[in-house]
């Protein structure tokens, strides 16, 4: 299977999972009642999504030059990590079982993708726009800080250091997935685990929105925990990477909460943010108004029939 085929398959599975989650967690009623507000909401949230997109583009550009740069300025911490945690990951793999391997492989690829994508959809549909803004900002902080860490810290994961004790279970079990992960990440980018930090971020945000989406909290918690374990179980990350990921999640959520806090209204930072927003808002408003006109015209036409 080629990379494109794999990507198509993952997208299909994730879309399917989101649809199921949409019915189960969000509820059909909420989706229906959202429709008239869709454009206005999109206009409100778009700058945040744009920020996230920019961070992602910057992230992927930096990752291309990252390893090269790392070897010049970065700290080599593989030895330090193994000195502290020793063979913890190998011990974890003692409990390897084909069923567990299959479970964690799917969690690592599909579960993780779903975990990240679902809140964006779910929070977009909420009347309260703070969760979606928090999510976009928290994701952005994760990726931005993560890529800086990848430049500053160079470490190989367990499978590259102790291949006799730690099996690269994901790739022996599911070789094609290596095409994807090697595309996304260099093998010296292990500290911190972005899989863990983003999953933990989602879980904490799920806790903050437990009243709006009570079912999402347990699902997100189980998935996030599984993702964190999977990174170690599959021999990709060290326990220290996972701890680093949890710390990064804490920083990201705290940063996002602080930045979106209503208490900050009127502060210089808030005003700066608004000015920045205005730059994006004007062309965006124009585009959306155009789309709005069209859909109204369409509505009128169907109405006249």
């Amino acid at each position: 299977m080629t990379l494109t085929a794999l990507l198509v398959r993952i997208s299909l599975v994730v879309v399917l999972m989101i649809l199921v989650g949409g019915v189960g967690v969000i509820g059909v009623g909420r989706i229906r009642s959202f429709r008239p507000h869709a454009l206005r909401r999109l206009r409100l949230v778009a700058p945040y999504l744009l920020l996230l997109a920019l961070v992602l583009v910057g992230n992927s550009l930096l990752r291309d030059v990252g390893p090269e740069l790392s070897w010049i300025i970065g700290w080599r911490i593989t030895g330090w990590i193994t000195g502290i945690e020793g063979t913890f990951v190998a011990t974890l793999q003692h409990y390897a079982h084909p069923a567990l391997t299959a479970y964690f492989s799917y969690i690592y690829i599909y579960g993780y993708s779903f975990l990240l994508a679902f809140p964006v959809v779910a929070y977009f549909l909420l009347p309260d726009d703070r969760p979606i803004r928090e999510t976009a900002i928290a994701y952005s902080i994760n990726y931005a800080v993560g890529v800086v860490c990848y430049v500053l810290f160079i470490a190989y994961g367990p499978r590259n250091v102790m291949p006799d004790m730690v099996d690269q279970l994901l790739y022996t079990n599911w070789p094609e997935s290596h095409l994807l992960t090697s595309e996304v990440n260099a093998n010296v980018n292990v500290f911190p685990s972005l899989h863990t930090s983003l999953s933990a971020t989602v879980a904490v945000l799920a806790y903050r929105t437990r009243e709006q989406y009570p079912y999402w909290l347990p699902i997100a918690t189980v998935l996030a925990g599984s993702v964190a374990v999977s990174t170690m179980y599959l021999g990709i990350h060290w326990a220290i990477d996972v701890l680093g990921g949890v710390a990064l999640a804490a920083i990201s959520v705290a940063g996002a909460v602080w930045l979106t806090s209503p208490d900050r209204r009127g502060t210089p930072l808030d005003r700066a943010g608004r000015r920045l927003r205005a730059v994006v808002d004007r062309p965006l408003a124009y585009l959306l108004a155009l789309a709005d006109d069209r859909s109204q015209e369409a509505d009128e036409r169907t109405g006249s029939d």
Partner: protein
Amino acid sequence: MTETEGEQSRLTRRQLLGASAALAVGTTSGCVSQARSILNRSSPSTLSVEIKTPPADADRTATLIARHLAENLDAVGIDATLEILPPVELYREVLLNGEFDVFVSQLPPIEDPDDLRTTLHSVFAEEAGWQNPYSFTDLTVDEHLETQLTARRLERRGVIGDLIDLIKREQPLTTVAYPDAIRAVRSDEFRGWPAYAPRSPLTYVALTRDGGRDPEAETTLQVSTTDPRVTQNLNPLAVEYRGSQTFTRLLYDPLMYRAGGERLPWLAETWQWTQAEETAAEVRLRPELAWHDGVPLTASDVAFTYEFLQDTSLGEIETTVPSPIYRGRSTLIEDVRVVDERTVDLSFGDVTPRVAELALTLPILPEHVWREQTGEANVSGISANNVTEALVWSNAEPVGSGPLRFERSVTDEALYLRRFEDHVLHEEEPPDPLRERFGDGVAFDRLEIRVVPSDETAIELLAAGDLDATRATITHRVVPDIGQNAALSLLVDRAKTPYHVGYNAGTEPFSNPHFRRLVARLLDKQYLVDDALGGYGTAVAHPFDGTDWNPPGSGFDGPNRELPFLGENGEVDVAAARDAFRERGFEFDEDGNLVVQ
């Protein structure tokens, strides 16, 4: 907590003041000599050793050998840490900068005993590259390496035999095992894989396509690699990017190929040896040779190449800057003289033709391209001393003369080469013996070398028909997967690149041959063959073990009998090992750590 710390630091400062006062008093009271004799003696410290090796993604076996050694050193009481580096970084630090204690990697291909001359002769100890990276110096070894140049047949065999004994004794490096070259291929379109050594460029030239080459339809041979370096840099002299040079040698032709005891005239049509005072050869090039860019290839390119490899600055920089690769073979030539467009005279000094002909296997470089690279390397204002542009440029669009020419390269993804129609192999009637061996030449229009993340992925792609073959040496761990698929064939051959442990003899305690011998005894070679290579390899005592240069005959000497492993089944016997170290004057402190002065 903070208070006590403050107290302590104040106390320390006070103590320090006291100490310096005492020293001042001591100076005045005439105890200078005693103080000096204490101060100038370095206090014994525990030894720590750093072992550099590529990561498992790049070379799983090397990582495992390094881990095995690190664990056994640790067990004995020598603090060993693994420093895992990507190949480019590893070779830059080890080969170019000499920054290492110990490193584990495969050696470059060893085809002739003379290849060891550059590896071990003291004259090369100061140079950067694969020439003596170990800073090893030994007069007797030097002498043998020089004598084998002039010795004939049986006499040379004797010299090499003695040299092998010396290497086994001195352990300038420890060869661990020759791995098997394992490759998986699809058998539905291309045939003839095993005709030449797995990593020889001739393997690709000798392939045949079922039903012959179809001039109408475009055919591509797709091969996997897990080593992205070939997509990053195509400079045949950039030592940190080069492995066995399979693909760069397809781009750059030599005068002749030596393959399986046969000498195939390549760019050269003929060569004539003369042996009066010294050995010389008159080389006659084939008519109407051309570079990939259409410029004619002449005798002056040949002369240029040999001069250039000796000094890539061609005298522009004060010190000579020899090439870090092909160094040994280029030093065989003493003088080059262009006779006419198609003829060069090469003089070799006191070297037998058997050795001298190795110089004819070097890739020939186009003068019109490389002459511009003789200046001092200069990257955005940073100029490195003693490095020429030739050694650092990436040669992103190489111009060679080989049967394949460069088409396109996508960094970390793929390299595409295309059949070079003006090559002698692709003439209407290629001259013999080329036509006999290679028929119509290259059997495909295009060669795609695709970077894949792992051999497991390569097998999946191969099974799905997205590839025609894997790289020449894949991990033994995919062998069962290959066996399960009827469309795939498994090829197993012996690789020419042994795994070895290299010591920096320029640093303590590796300058001590006894210490190297003891470290060698912490490597359980047979265990490593079984464990790290899954049995696909052979433990060896020296670089020529298992070849017909081996003194006992053509068999294997196997794990060095004179230096047996200090333990069993990979587990080191700590008490016995420590005794062995103590016997050679090494000491351990009360915590069991080896101490050095």
